[in-house]
């Protein structure tokens, strides 16, 4: 990841230099220029001057011609100029203007959506076009909507136009958003609005058009989807019921609460609240209210039933107050005082209260049968709400009481996250709706469940191991031993001979890291039963040991230094067996520990006899070949280069990498024995000394800062054969020769 950065710097550098060079060149050029003019005759000079002025005039004229007529339009085109809504072009709808068909309930993406318009592109992003604003009026000049463009719809459209979904090129668009505001059906004239939709130049039976509606239906029966006939247009609607929602086609959106723009509710830490259940809605049907009152009688103080304040005058202020028997509460602040908040259906299924409740971090208790919850296609509401059938309202208290505290806190956190990410503004709502449609068109690049549903805290701390399936690989493929060597041939040959005795060894790979010296002739190598390959490297780098060589055909890799001659065949075979049980971990012999040094306030490396282990040295360790790829191609930051430059700590880096991605500790196998000097490869021949330890401590601190966390896990166990040191005949043990010194 450091590469692009450093590359960027060098690029900038060269660009700067060439720019500088050009500056110099042009300087030279101008210095030569003036010499030409004085030599000219006056006659010629007049001619040149006239020609020059003619050309100049011509240029100015063409320039004017090019820019002048467009100047007004062009500034409007690409600058954020302020305009009046009343200047939008007026469109008169003839009475006979065609009306679209009512929405087709059987529409699905594969039947009513033209996917060819979206195309295949590497970014997997749809393009959205917004029609320019027009004012539609009927034949007598009455507008089709009483409010015209609302503040919220305007926010939504400008959010789309600022996003990377937006295109102003109608021919490249995949999705069309009309600028006709249908958020609130109450303010619309249904027939005329439908006619206006049909007038849109690219309407084409509503194909690929997206309408946003939050308040559908109207009195007395309040249908649950927008009543405006709209052909095949997609509907992002608030308040769908299961019968009007076309699953996988429509998008269920929340009803935006205007309060959230005015009120800043600070995030409250999850935990117990003063009230257990709170009902704050004002226009609850009296049947529901009676049932809530009954619950209140039974359970007393735990419930708070608020209603409109009768003594306050109507207006914006009254929306911010709630009352209970003359006691006045601030709304929505009071919502933060309760663990659960009731969200009952009204005439409509979608309620703006839901948004307030989420913002307050109160867990919504939703009683609205058949309601399609906002963004339910991607959001897992079971983690943020309690849905109770309307009939079970009397049982609400018992149901909620059965939820343990821990879970309540988890849900409180989740509600606030949903609000922050998907409900907080019209922009958030609009972007989420487009994101959902985008995911349907490019399902293979869709956001995952975790991305949608895990709050940042969880995303940060959770670990989903890439090798998550519990598999115990078969023994038969065996393992490939990778020996990193420089020039210690005698020792190398001993290691090869020792390892070749291990039954499950499939192949031996020698990584020859010495560029100045050729490996010995083939005839001199020890004769072993399995294939032996020598790879010569281009540079003497430690990372060569973790390169995913094509020669490694098994999944299990044994990394081993050329001086590890003390491991017995039993120990190695046992290590392989342990790896099979933990194929996603590092399984190694010498263990090490990281400690927090309180005095210095930083991490410290520890190789003494400790009761704990958090790393195993890769001088002798089994691991999955997958980690070779990770080390070589996915190591975060500049760790890889740092290791190569310092010729040290490649094993610590590998331990960090594996622990970070799997969230698991390594496994140390078999008892400690005298390793000649397992950590000396880097400093070649030097004995284990203080500077070496200091350097390794530095590594830990450096890596921890690059990873942004300390991923290493400390454990107190090591793996031994089942019968290790047991009073049992040695010859009956599978691995008798363990721990001999």
């Amino acid at each position: 990841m450091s590469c692009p950065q450093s590359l960027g710097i060098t690029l900038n550098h060269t660009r700067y230099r060439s720019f500088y060079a050009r500056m110099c060149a042009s300087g030279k050029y101008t210095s030569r220029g003036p010499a030409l003019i004085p030599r000219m005759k006056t006659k010629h000079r007049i001619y040149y001057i006239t020609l020059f002025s003619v050309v100049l005039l011509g240029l100015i004229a063409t320039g004017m011609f090019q820019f002048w007529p467009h100047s007004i339009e062009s500034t409007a085109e690409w600058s954020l100029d302020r305009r009046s809504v009343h200047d939008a072009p007026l469109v008169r709808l003839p009475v006979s203007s065609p009306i679209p068909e009512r929405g087709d309930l059987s529409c699905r993406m594969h039947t009513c959506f033209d996917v060819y318009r979206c195309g295949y592109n590497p970014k997997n992003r749809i393009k959205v076009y917004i029609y320019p604003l027009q004012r539609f009026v009927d034949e007598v000049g009455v507008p089709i909507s009483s409010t015209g463009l609302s503040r919220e719809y305007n926010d939504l459209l400008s959010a789309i136009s600022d996003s990377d979904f937006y295109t102003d090129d109608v021919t490249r668009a995949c999705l069309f958003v009309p600028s006709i505001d249908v958020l609130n059906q109450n303010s619309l004239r249904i027939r005329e609005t439908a006619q206006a939709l049909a007038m849109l130049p690219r309407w084409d039976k509503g194909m690929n058009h997206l309408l946003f509606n939050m308040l559908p239906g109207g009195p007395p029966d309040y249908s649950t989807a927008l009543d405006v006939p709209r052909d095949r247009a997609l509907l992002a609607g608030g308040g769908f019921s299961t019968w009007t929602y076309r699953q996988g086609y429509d998008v269920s959106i929340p009803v935006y609460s205007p309060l959230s723009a005015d009120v800043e509710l600070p995030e409250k830490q999850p935990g117990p609240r003063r009230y257990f259940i709170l009902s704050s809605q004002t226009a609850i049907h009296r049947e529901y209210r009676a049932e809530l009152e009954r619950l209140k009688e039974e359970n007393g103080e735990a419930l708070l039933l608020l209603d409109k304040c009768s003594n306050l005058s109507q207006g914006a202020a009254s929306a911010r107050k709630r009352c209970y028997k003359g006691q006045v509460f601030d709304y929505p602040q009071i919502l933060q005082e309760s663990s659960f908040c009731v969200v009952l259906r009204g005439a409509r299924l979608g309620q703006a209260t839901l948004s307030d409740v989420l913002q307050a971090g109160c867990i919504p208790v939703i009683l609205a049968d058949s309601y399609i919850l906002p963004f339910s296609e991607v959001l897992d509401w079971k983690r943020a709400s309690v849905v109770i059938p309307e009939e079970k309202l009397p049982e609400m208290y018992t149901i909620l009481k059965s939820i343990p505290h821990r879970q309540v806190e988890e849900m409180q956190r989740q509600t606030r996250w949903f609000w922050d990410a998907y409900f907080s503004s019209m922009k958030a709502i609009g972007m989420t709706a487009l994101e959902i449609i985008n995911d349907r068109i490019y399902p293979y690049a869709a956001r995952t469940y975790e991305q949608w549903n895990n709050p940042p805290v969880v995303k940060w701390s959770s670990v989903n191991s890439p090798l998550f399936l519990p598999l115990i690989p078969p023994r038969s493929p065996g393992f490939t031993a990778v020996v990193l060597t420089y020039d210690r041939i005698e020792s190398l040959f001993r290691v090869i001979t020792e390892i070749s005795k291990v039954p499950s060894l499939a192949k031996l790979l020698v990584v020859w890291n010495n560029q100045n010296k050729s490996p010995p002739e083939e005839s001199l190598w020890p004769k072993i039963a399995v294939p032996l390959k020598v790879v010569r490297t281009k540079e003497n780098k430690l990372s060569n040991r973790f390169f995913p060589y094509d020669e490694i055909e098994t999944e299990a890799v044994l990394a081993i230094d050329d001086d590890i001659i003390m491991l017995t065949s039993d120990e190695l075979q046992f290590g392989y067996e342990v790896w099979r049980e933990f194929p996603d971990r590092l399984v190694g012999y010498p263990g090490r520990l990281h400690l927090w040094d309180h005095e210095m306030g930083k991490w410290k490396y520890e190789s003494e006899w400790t009761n704990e282990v958090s790393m195993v040295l890769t001088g002798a360790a089994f691991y999955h070949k997958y980690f070779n790829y990770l080390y070589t191609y996915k190591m975060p930051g500049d760790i890889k280069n740092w290791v190569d430059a310092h010729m040290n700590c490649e094993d610590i880096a590998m331990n960090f990498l594996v622990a970070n991605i799997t969230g698991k500790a390594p496994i140390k196998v078999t008892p400690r024995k005298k390793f000649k000097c397992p950590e000396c490869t880097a400093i070649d021949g030097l004995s284990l000394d203080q500077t070496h330890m200091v350097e390794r401590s530095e590594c830990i601190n450096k890596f921890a800062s690059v990873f942004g966390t300390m991923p290493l896990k400390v454990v107190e166990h090591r793996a031994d054969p089942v019968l290790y040191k047991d009073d049992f005949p040695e010859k009956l043990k599978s691995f008798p020769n363990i721990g001999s010194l």
Partner: protein
Amino acid sequence: MQAKKRYLLVSLGACLLLVAYLWGLVAQRPGLRLHRQHWPEWTHPLSPYLEDGEQEQDSPLLHHQHTSPRERREIRNNIYKSRRCRMDTCFDFRRCQRGFKVYVYPLPKGEKVSESYQKILTAVEDSRFHTTDVNQACLFVLGIDTLDRDQLSGQYVHNVKAKIQSLPTWNDGRNHLIFNLYSGTWPDYTEELGFDIGQAILAKASIDMDNFRPHFDVSIPLFSKDHSQKGGDKGYLTLNNVPPSRKYLLVFKGKRYLTGIGSETRNALYHIHNGEDIILLTTCKHGKDWEKHKDTRCDRENEEYSKFDYQELLHNSSFCLVPRGRRLGSFRFLEALQAACIPVLLSNGWELPFSEIIDWSKAAIIGDERLLLQVPSITRSVDHDKILALRQQTQFLWDAYFSSVAKIVLTTLEIIQDRINSHISRNKLMWNSLPGGLYVLPQFSTDAAVFPFYYSSLGKSPSQEFTAVIQAVTPLQSQLQPLVKLIIAVAKSKFCAQIIVLWNCDKPLPSKNKWPSTAVPITVIEGERKTMSSRFFPHDVILTDAVLSLDEDSVLSTNEVDFAFFVWHSFPDRIVGYPARSHYWDSSKSRWGYTSKWTNEYSMVLTGAAFYHRYYHYLYTHYLPPSLLTMVDRMSNCEDILMNFLVSAVTKLPPIKVTQKKQYKETMMQQGSKTSRWADPDHFAQRQTCMNSFSGWFGFMPLLHSQMRLDPVLFKDQVSILRKKYRDIERL
């Protein structure tokens, strides 16, 4: 002349410059478009979309207009029937108040049902939801085979309509579940069943989104009549290969319909077949008269078709195409899933199997029939990490929900049960990650964080305390008896939150002052039934994640307890215990054998001294069938084997043995009180029998062997004992 020429030249040059300039301007104009046209900012303030900033109900005028909720529900229940059924309108929840019980109608006399349907019925009858009492039933399953509703098929059952109408509790299909695999027939293959299902829930394969009633019907996979009843074949994947790409990128082998419904997609496959890494083989041979319709490609394709082995293709390809056939779903789907070949679905409108709960984007590529030509580039664009993840997910899903008829049926039932009590149901995380929804009972908790499976994916870790549960069977007489010593040793552990003594002794409870005084509270629970299984009862007093299960004669030091608890913390989903046992396949008797001999490997640890997550208490009591629990109780034996079976079936991993002092084993095996069940000669034979009954019920042998034991890091190392944290473990 010369001057004229020069003037001309200069003028010409000037003109050229001008032209170039003009051209430059023109060329520049599209460049202006880089500045995007933005949505303008308005000078006038706009009005809010909610009039008066309030919602409609606030207006007092409308307040009394909307109908009473109760009336509205009644109206709704009458309107939304048959094709518009939902659980709210077509399902009688009152029938389920006494629990989710499923009744299977007896088979009509003299009628035979198909092999597949018999498997479904057996699966229901074996499940813990089954009841034989009609009055207890919440859900009814027909005894009439409705799997094959293709009129041209030999399995087609006639007069279903009349037979169903004659059922006494049919009630227009309310609370009935109807299974179907094939519907409709040549030529249009509509999803017509040939009878009216009324308000019954349809569990159907190849169901079309149009006919699918969301959150009411269940889409099931198409399975063959050879599909296992139980257990099921394992997934093909035994190890994760890296790089994960296989020899072929995309393969398909199947029939090609020359005409009629569903023929377009398969007929077009040859466009993307390249003979190298994309092998899409079709044959025209199907039916009797295929030669009549055969086209120019048929002969060449038929020839190539026979060159490749289907299994070989499946196992060597990264992706497998699953195009629609006559019907939307095909056998290719489950075949690909099992073979760890990532399915690429080309079947527009198919409601994917168990789509209500399974997040298919984690295990398959969902393509669009209209965009067949994009399939190669889409599959090539999937990076290695994603392939690795998708492939493992296919294996998890296969094993969790699809590998046997029993799993398919159980998943169907669990989905319906989750709907009945929506506030007690599994979330998507539980359904879509290991170990799968069937092993995660929402009645225990709906919070994923209290299960042992999701700690790392939620970024949490188990609590730092445990509850010791000691099973007492002998009366408390002296302060020197093992039980007292054990309580004292366990209570000394700093991780011990409380000790629970399950008084399963016939003698009355000893008085309070007989118990040793300890720093942690001791709770004595007198078992009502005093059975073996009751030691795993999920008592409400157990609040810690970890449970230390103990026999009263176990001998443990505080050190051993602490160390094992530390180990359990790293493996919270497994059993971590001390003495271990092993199973083996006795090929001479062709049955499973049990051994308590010291061996180099083990597959069980005894629950007489073991740590595990408290959820397993719940699972043991509520997931296992009464037949196995009564078997354990009757013999007063095998409860530990059953627990090991259960945990290994859930985790697909062996238990973990930690080191123990040698004397422990001796007390367990030889010494001990006379009542010790280990002294019973029948004891061993019984355990052998248990093994075979248990594996019979599970449908497979869940136990797995391990060759390692976990010891403290410095165990037996030649270093001063003072450096060692767990000194007692070293001392013999």
